[in-house]
């Protein structure tokens, strides 16, 4: 698809970092300044024991400490040096920018405010894997406790906190699981760009997110988040100090998401290689961009919901207290106006990865590129019109249930287009059954079940029965884990050689794949049955009539857990000692496979010019 052109040689300025403040800042300095800020804010605002507003003042002190930690960390790691220098009219020099890009700094750059998009991509990858490991461990604890009726592996008092922390950890991880590592590392190379549009903001998006991790962890030491990840008000207004950690996490994460979404969108719109018209943009880039572009307007509504929850807790405003004119419905609206698009923010990149992979391993062009784009656009557009299907039984304007049922079910149409594209691409092909390609078949199956069960939940009468049951839990795990996470893992197997220079251990990958996929079906098909029979979610102890379903589900969960441990081992082992990867192990045609490993700082020695579409397999080019 490309020709490579060059006329001039490199003339890089040599970094001269001596005595510059930039060279002295790293994660350690960030942590020190962050802790000083947090402790200072807490002690400045901590309540006296006899304060009549003790509850509010305690919330104020904790929230201030958490947000101050984030700001302090960013100051300490040097995130604000660029803006400050802009403010005083002394822009960063080329040498300083080159130093920030991490040129020649080896592994140290991963612990600094590094602007190289490939470093940021790896930071996201490691961060996401850590989050998934923690969230997955919580899931194993939950399933262990639910293995038998009346199981007491987890105390009833912390069960909902565990479920809530599992939920929010996984949701955050899943939102960034594809657009974080691959959107940052691979996507700029795929479009022929030398960097992201805003390299410093790129680093900012990661480090802002990083500061949310200890904040969320602190919830454990502050009594947990007993509301579940939805944090419905007024429960969240009345909850203990741990709720402040949830609020601060969402506020910080929303900033990170907005910055990352803006950066990825601007990069794709403004920095594509010469000749890369919109119909020549790789489909992963289209899907990832629609995902982050959807997140840009969606997340601020959740951010406002958290601001209002915070002011209710700190200042006794009355957004969610009906005694003073507030309403829990307001929270539900704001939450789900974000919440449903967020499902597609997670899903679209996963599906787009599979669309990227499938033509490569079938050696056929992508079936109907336009239908794929239309499918993504249709889903993104409709996803903002369906939020109230989560509120059918809340009592909010029952007359609008019908219209929301229709808009929800309409999403099946563009979703069907995505199936059509995947199946059409593989149709009559001879798939090269390497590890990445397995994910495509798994997602067709999982997403089909996730999608069809979703139609039942969108149906008002059926939802009246199924709402709040384990059926719902199984449904959204089939879409988010079965489709989006499986797609992301396929992406990891596919791009692992480019990101690490080594091949992912194929045998371990196969073992992991089959353990995870078989275990997954056992886990969640069992949960579907329990849910359809009436077992409620978020309840620590269940009736004896559900014992076999839950025992089966827990057995499946252990299989999934073993599968992911094998995958984690494969990633770590292959990264260190795996076979050296050739430049283009899959014979793919997109631009990232035209650059060597390690990828040069500016990706391309010669600027690419695009002359054809990226899926011209079997066309003689």
């Amino acid at each position, binding site marked *: 698809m490309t020709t490579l052109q060059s006329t001039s040689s490199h003339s890089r300025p040599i970094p001269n970092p001596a005595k510059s403040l930039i060279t002295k800042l790293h994660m350690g300095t960030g942590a020190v300044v962050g802790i000083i800020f947090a402790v200072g804010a807490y002690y400045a605002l901590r309540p006296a024991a006899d304060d009549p507003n003790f509850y509010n003042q305690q919330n104020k002190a904790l929230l201030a400490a958490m947000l101050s930690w984030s700001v302090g960390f960013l100051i300490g790691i040097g995130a604000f040096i660029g803006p400050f220098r802009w403010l005083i009219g002394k822009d960063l020099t080329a040498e300083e920018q080159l130093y920030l890009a991490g040129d020649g700094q080896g592994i140290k750059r991963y612990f600094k405010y590094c602007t190289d998009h490939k470093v940021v991509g790896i930071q996201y990858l490691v961060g996401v894997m850590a989050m998934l490991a923690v969230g997955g461990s919580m899931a194993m604890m939950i399933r262990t406790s639910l293995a038998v009726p009346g199981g007491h592996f987890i105390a009833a008092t912390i069960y909902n906190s565990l479920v809530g922390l599992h939920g929010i950890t996984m949701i955050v991880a899943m939102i960034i699981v594809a657009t974080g590592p691959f959107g940052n590392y691979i996507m700029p190379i795929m479009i022929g760009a030398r960097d992201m549009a805003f390299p410093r903001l790129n680093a900012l998006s990661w480090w802002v997110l990083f500061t949310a991790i200890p904040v969320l962890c602190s919830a454990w030491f502050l009594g947990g988040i007993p509301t579940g990840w939805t944090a419905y008000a007024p429960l969240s207004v009345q909850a203990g100090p741990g709720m402040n950690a949830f609020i601060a996490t969402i506020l910080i994460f929303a900033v990170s998401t907005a910055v990352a979404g803006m950066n990825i969108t601007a990069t794709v719109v403004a920095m594509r290689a010469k000749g890369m018209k919109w119909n020549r943009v790789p489909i992963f880039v289209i899907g990832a961009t629609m995902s982050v572009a959807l997140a840009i307007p969606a997340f601020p509504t959740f951010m406002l919901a958290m601001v209002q929850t915070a*002011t209710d807790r700190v200042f006794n405003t009355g957004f969610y207290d009906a005694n003073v004119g507030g309403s829990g419905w307001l929270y539900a609206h704001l939450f789900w106006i974000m919440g449903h698009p967020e499902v597609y923010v997670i899903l679209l990149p996963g599906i787009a990865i599979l669309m990227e992979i499938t033509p490569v391993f079938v050696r056929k062009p992508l079936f109907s590129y336009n239908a794929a784009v239309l499918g993504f656009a249709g889903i993104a557009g409709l996803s903002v019109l369906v939020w109230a299907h989560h509120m059918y039984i809340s009592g909010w304007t029952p007359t609008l249930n019908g219209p929301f049922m229709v808009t929800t079910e309409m999403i099946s149409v563009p979703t069907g287009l995505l199936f059509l594209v995947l199946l059409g691409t593989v149709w009559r092909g001879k798939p090269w059954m390497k590890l990445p390609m397995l994910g495509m078949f798994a997602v067709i199956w999982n997403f089909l079940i996730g999608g069809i069960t979703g139609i039942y939940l969108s149906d008002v009468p059926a939802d009246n029965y199924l709402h709040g049951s384990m059926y719902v839990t199984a449904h959204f795990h089939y879409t988010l884990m079965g489709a989006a996470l499986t797609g992301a893992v396929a992406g990891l197997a596919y791009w692992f050689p480019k990101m690490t220079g080594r091949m992912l251990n194929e045998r371990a990958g196969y073992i992991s794949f089959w353990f995870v996929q078989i275990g997954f079906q056992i886990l969640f098909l069992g949960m579907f049955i329990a849910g359809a029979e009436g077992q409620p979610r978020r309840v620590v102890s269940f009736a004896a009539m559900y014992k076999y379903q839950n025992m089966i589900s827990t057995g499946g969960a252990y299989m999934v857990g073993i599968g992911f441990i094998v995958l984690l081992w494969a990633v770590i082992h292959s990264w260190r000692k795996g076979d050296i990867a050739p430049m283009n192990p899959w014979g793919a045609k997109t631009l990232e496979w035209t650059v060597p490993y390690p990828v040069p700082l500016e990706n391309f020695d010669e600027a690419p010019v695009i002359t054809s579409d990226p899926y011209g397999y079997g066309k003689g080019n």
Partner: protein
Amino acid sequence: MSSDTQFHIHHDAPEVVGRRERLGVRLLIVADGAFVASMIFSYFYLRGLNANGAWVPKGGHTLSASTGWMAALPFVVAAIVHKIGTRNRSNATAGIVLLAMLVGAYIQWHQLATMPFIAKDDGGRHFFEGAYASNWVVLGGANLFHYFVGTFIALGLFIRGFRAKVDPTLEHWRQLTASSWFTWIAISGVLCAITTGII
């Protein structure tokens, strides 16, 4: 066709960098716009619901519409003055924009500091009088945030206007980019003023 492969960070043509920066700011404005739209939705949703008749409870306070317009006026002045300065490629207006931001921030801060909505219950606990008061304070807080960001930008443009080392073409693009922001916060301020004027 050929392509420049020199080390490029911020070495793209100023017009290219400028357009890219403006696009980025406009995308951030979309996010901020969604936040403001959500606040306005909250205001009218709770106003329409009037749960327990406590949108403005009996004996509760309200503020006149002029309060919101007072807070919004500096936004509008700054946006117009900045646009004039950008059109004339002049840095002389940056000081006026900065002044407008500072005055606006003071007005909004003063309104928040002296609002009459906070009551005390029998236990000495502070609480807000009703949903109108709750919404008013968050809308005011958003205005204040906009003033802080606007002050930062205006101060930067003001200082940079006096420095000879900046690239004039890129600086003009940054004026245009800032214009997008000042126009947006003026629109936002006016929308908030209209909203709080409908009690």
